[in-house]
């Protein structure tokens, strides 16, 4: 009897906290994130029924912010595998990503400050991107079509107070990174980026296996060009760097991305040395060149434009163009080694 009651209660709860799936399809975006009901508890970021957390093997650097990701696929539908591309998600799907800073990186139990939750929504005519910025009281996030600047501080692993001028991107800036042949497209959820163990509440299991079990994706047996976790030093330097460049630069710097006019292609599958930047002269780089002659000068990281632009925080010089105001020192060290060892 007790059991039956519990069951009824949990059913009631899951119905009450079902995702507002029609809202995903509507042309207009609601003003508040909570309208979608992606979360049972918005503040604590507890997902609703059918909203499944995931992680990427390597992820984009966004000013040292932390990210939590979830996928939602309407019941009875599933995504289809495409080699070296993001899954082909069915209409009505949502990708949800919350950016936050811990109060103190040394002790995550001290809590976090939510910055924004970005959504990619698969509507009938394709993906749409939008971002919701969290309010000061952290109980609601509001749509910010024109973007927003948030000044934040946190304590890092060394106990130092760090500050950031965090930019919530505007709708057009979303597209700067998410353009694929001029259409908006997710970047992260390619099979190869998900091919790792994740600690779900009920089990620890490879994410692709889990997605198949949940019927989020159709079962596939494939050979993947799996990137590595660039932070994991046991992997080869070349693999780590190429994985980092792929997820940080390759969505724009590819023959299908926004920076295709540059001829510099940093996606995982590129193999031509010139297009990878090796002894490649700049094209329309302007002062981004820093006075250096090549994107990558083998053996000479100090005179490689790639590193100059990754280190810089000057908006007219730095790469990526959006989404960064701080330098990613840990990655810079690794890429310097890679160039110097060429």
């Amino acid at each position, binding site marked *: 009897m007790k059991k039956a009651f519990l069951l009824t209660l949990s059913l009631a709860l899951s119905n009450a906290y079902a995702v507002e799936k029609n809202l995903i399809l509507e042309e207009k975006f609601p003003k508040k994130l909570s309208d979608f009901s992606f979360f049972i508890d918005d503040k604590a970021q507890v997902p609703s029924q059918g909203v499944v957390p995931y992680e990427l093997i390597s992820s984009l650097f966004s000013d040292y912010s932390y990210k939590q990701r979830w996928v939602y696929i309407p019941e009875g539908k599933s995504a289809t595998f495409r080699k070296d591309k993001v899954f082909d998600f069915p209409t009505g799907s949502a990708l949800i990503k919350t950016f936050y800073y811990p109060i103190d990186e040394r002790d995550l139990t001290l809590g976090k400050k939510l910055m924004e939750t970005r959504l990619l929504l698969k509507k009938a005519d394709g993906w749409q991107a939008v971002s919701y910025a969290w309010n000061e009281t952290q109980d609601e996030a509001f749509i910010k079509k024109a973007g927003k600047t948030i000044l934040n501080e946190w304590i890092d692993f060394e106990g130092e107070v760090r500050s950031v001028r965090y930019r919530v991107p505007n709708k*057009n*800036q979303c*597209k700067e990174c998410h353009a694929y042949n001029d259409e908006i497209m997710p970047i992260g959820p390619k099979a190869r980026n998900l091919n790792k163990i994740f600690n779900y509440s009920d089990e620890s299991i490879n994410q692709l296996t889990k997605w198949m079990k949940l019927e989020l994706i159709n079962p596939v047996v494939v050979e993947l060009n799996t990137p590595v976790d660039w932070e994991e030093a046991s992997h080869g330097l070349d693999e780590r760097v190429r994985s980092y460049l792929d997820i940080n630069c390759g969505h724009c710097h590819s023959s299908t991305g926004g920076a295709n006019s*540059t001829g510099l292609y940093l996606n995982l599958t590129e193999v031509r040395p010139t297009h990878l930047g090796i002894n490649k002269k700049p*094209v329309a780089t302007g002062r981004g060149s820093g006075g250096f002659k090549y994107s990558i000068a083998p053996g000479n990281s100090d005179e490689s434009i790639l590193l100059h632009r990754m280190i810089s925080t000057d*908006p007219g010089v730095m790469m990526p163009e959006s989404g960064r105001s701080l330098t990613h020192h840990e990655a810079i060290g690794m890429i310097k080694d890679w160039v110097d060892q060429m």
Partner: protein
Amino acid sequence: MKNSILYISIIFFSFAISAKQIVLGPSDNSQEEIQEALIDLEPGDVLTLKAGEYFFEDGLSLDVNDVIFEGSGIDDTILNFENQMSGAQGLLITSDGVTIRDFAVIDAKGDAIKVIGADGIDMIRLRTEWTGGPKETNGAYGFYPVESKDVLIDGCVAIGASDAGIYVGQSQNIIVKNSVAQYNVAGIEIENSYYADVFDNLASHNTGGILVFDLPDLPQQGGHHVRVFRNKAINNDTDNFAPEGNIVGEVPRGTGIIIQANSDVEVFDNDLYGNGTVNLSIVTYGYETEDENYNPHPKSIQIHGNRFGDGGFDPDVGTGELAAILFELSGGDMPDIFWDGILPMNQMLFGQPADEKLVIKNNGDATFLTLNPIKYMLPFFDPVERDISEYDGEINPLPAVVLN
């Protein structure tokens, strides 16, 4: 007939109900107000900025088709980016059929106005300027349409770009006219582009006036069909201030027009004078490349009916190689027109096809210098040739560009 009237009235009606004009003035919140207005525009709409100065901390961007974004005058509506903290350009446009007109973009941290992948873009009576004069820290480009089709730049002013004031890259069907480019490294540059008309412009006090270039390892290359006419490429006398590494960093101070590695370029009815290194040069792309699809040599170039004045009086031998080589070859007697004479090896040995030959005709008393590469490789021969009449030939006018 009846049908077509009905059709027209329906179009008229639908525009009447949907198109709207939004008018904004300067405020403390211009960044958000204007960016939000740009995002909320719908095709057919007009966003008008009143006269005044508008300050921005982030770049602006527009991604809606078929809209007009306008100010109230090239000197009256000023979009000021001197406090810019983020965004790689002042204004970025990524949609089709946009018209921008009657405002100025000043002191952007990167490029001033960049247009990517537009099918139709009209830039009319706009100014891009870095107000601190020529400096290496200025943004690269004033006007920067790339990978676009049907590009119009009309009545614009570009000042102080550390690369090119007006730069059209990897585009096709282009008109640049009635515009002024001053105190840039390159005044006007057409790069890796097809079908461009550049006319009635003034390019002065730049390092180089007008450049028609083609570069390797890019998605669109083999630039062709460029007409440069009725321009003044005069008094280009600003020291090269481009950051090293950029191709324009090689341009010596005092060049009027340079054609590099394009085909089918017609240069006529221009005024060229006051250019201290050389008024006009036609050169091969001088770096090694492994790009097998790339042709580094200019071909089918026609130079006719231009008016040449003084030139070569102050060669900038310290920048790049062009001025130093030319100074050495000419023994200081610098020509008005220089061709480096470099051809693909088979053409050096067996001659050039007739329709690819350089034609120079009716340029008054312009002087000329070219290099005979075979003689250059052999000892005891003077490789320098100065006889301009060798290049007299029939002019085959290129067709005018018509924008869609």
